């Protein structure tokens, strides 16, 4: 469903992605792990074009997304078309990025009203149902500032789901949370995975990757070093860099 071919991205002199290719089928749950600065968040942001890669192509359902190659040169498509592709992906950010000037229901209903043209009443009806699914039916009228980090992140998940995306992108969704709040967010994500949602998750939660992922990807220095099913990935990693990283991660936990 999602295909990345030879994605490259630099910030000035620094090359953060050095030709990354990845294929994700419908219903796949992919966990991307790796040290900070390995390019995993950037890769995720290339998928919904929050970052524009310099080279490589992104395909959604077989069709090239966001831009065309005209006579060997990359030409970005009109912004409206980029927006249209972008909304096929729901994104959850490390620091939530809820809209502070809207209440919880407003956060969830905003994009369906503005982008998909739903009536406010319909968007709110669906919003309440989604908030119920993430266990926040009683917080509909609350304001983001009144919520805990875990609650905020669950609202953010509901907000992304409200656009009925084809796939969900999670950018370290639990990294900004107090340890005791991590569980409630992972539980919602597990639930989503069980429902068959296609998910790409950048995370440091090894337990989650082990239990939920169909495939685990280890990235380092802008490249995919190793890609394997979780049982194999964690029990018998092949690459030395993966082994070293997993050993370090284990020591920390």
């Amino acid at each position, binding site marked *: 469903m999602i295909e990345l071919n030879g994605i490259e991205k630099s910030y000035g002199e620094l090359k953060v992605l050095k030709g990354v290719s990845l294929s994700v089928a419908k219903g796949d749950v992919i966990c991307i792990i790796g040290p900070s600065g390995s390019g995993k968040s950037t890769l995720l942001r290339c998928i919904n074009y929050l970052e524009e890669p310099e080279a490589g192509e992104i395909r959604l359902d077989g069709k090239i997304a966001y831009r065309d190659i005209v006579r060997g040169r990359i030409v970005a498509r009109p912004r409206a078309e980029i927006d249209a592709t972008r909304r096929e992906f729901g994104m959850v950010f490390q620091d939530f990025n809820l809209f502070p*000037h809207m209440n919880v229901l407003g956060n969830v209903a905003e994009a369906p009203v503005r982008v998909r043209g739903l009536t406010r009443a319909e968007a709110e009806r669906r919003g309440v149902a989604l908030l119920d699914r993430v266990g926040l039916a009683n917080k509909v009228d609350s304001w983001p500032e009144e919520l805990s980090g875990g609650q905020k992140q669950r609202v953010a998940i509901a907000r992304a789901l409200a656009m009925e995306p084809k796939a969900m992108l999670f950018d370290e969704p639990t990294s900004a949370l107090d340890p005791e709040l991590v569980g409630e967010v992972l539980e919602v994500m597990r639930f989503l995975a069980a429902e068959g949602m296609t998910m790409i998750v950048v995370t440091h939660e090894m337990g989650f990757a082990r239990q939920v992922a169909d495939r685990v990807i280890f990235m380092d220095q802008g490249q995919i070093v190793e890609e394997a099913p979780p049982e194999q990935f964690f029990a018998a990693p092949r690459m030395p860099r993966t082994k070293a990283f997993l050993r370090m991660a284990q020591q920390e936990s």
Partner: protein
Amino acid sequence: MDLLNLSVVAEYYPVLLRGFGMTILMTLIVITLSLTLAIPVALSRMSGNFLVRLVGGTYVELLRGTPLVLQLVYIYFVLPGVGIRLDGFVAALVALTLHYTAYLSEVYRAGIQSVPKGQTQAASALGMSRGQTFIRIVLPQAVRTVTPALGNYFISLFKDTALASVVTVQELLFSGQIIAARTYQYFTIYTVCMIMYFSVGYPAALFVRWLEKRTSGGYARRRRRQKGGQA
């Protein structure tokens, strides 16, 4: 000596009130115009296009770097030389609007830039267009941040309308000058003018201080209070 001559006030108060009305009218017109015009100017200064940025930047720096009185005099006395003849009232409105648009655009720019990048990214990720993101996500947060600063500029605008007297607009100060010249009751007339300005300026300043307090906290309590205080 009886400095305060109330009979002069009794005789001329309609003139003063008319002048005061003119002062208020000019303030309101310029607020409306500059509040609106400052948005495109602020956006031009953040444009990706170098030329657009240059034009916006030049305009803002020119108007911030020269005295308002000179700008006003320039428009009224110099522009007729190139065939643009404006009456005093219009010239004053143009000068004040140009001047305050420059300042307010800087306030807007600061406000817009104070909204975290993550907000725009979240909106983009939801498929919202640039326009929708700006109007629904960035602007409301920016406006809230800058409201107290805007209030302060409105107060100084209210006082700066007195400069229109230089180009014969009969606002409050000029009305006072006319009466004072005719009656020689300088102390009385100018004291009354002072009181009239202060009677608006001071409550406005108090209001801005209250706004500052109200917009400094979170969003929740404010809304709750509006709904009838269940928090």
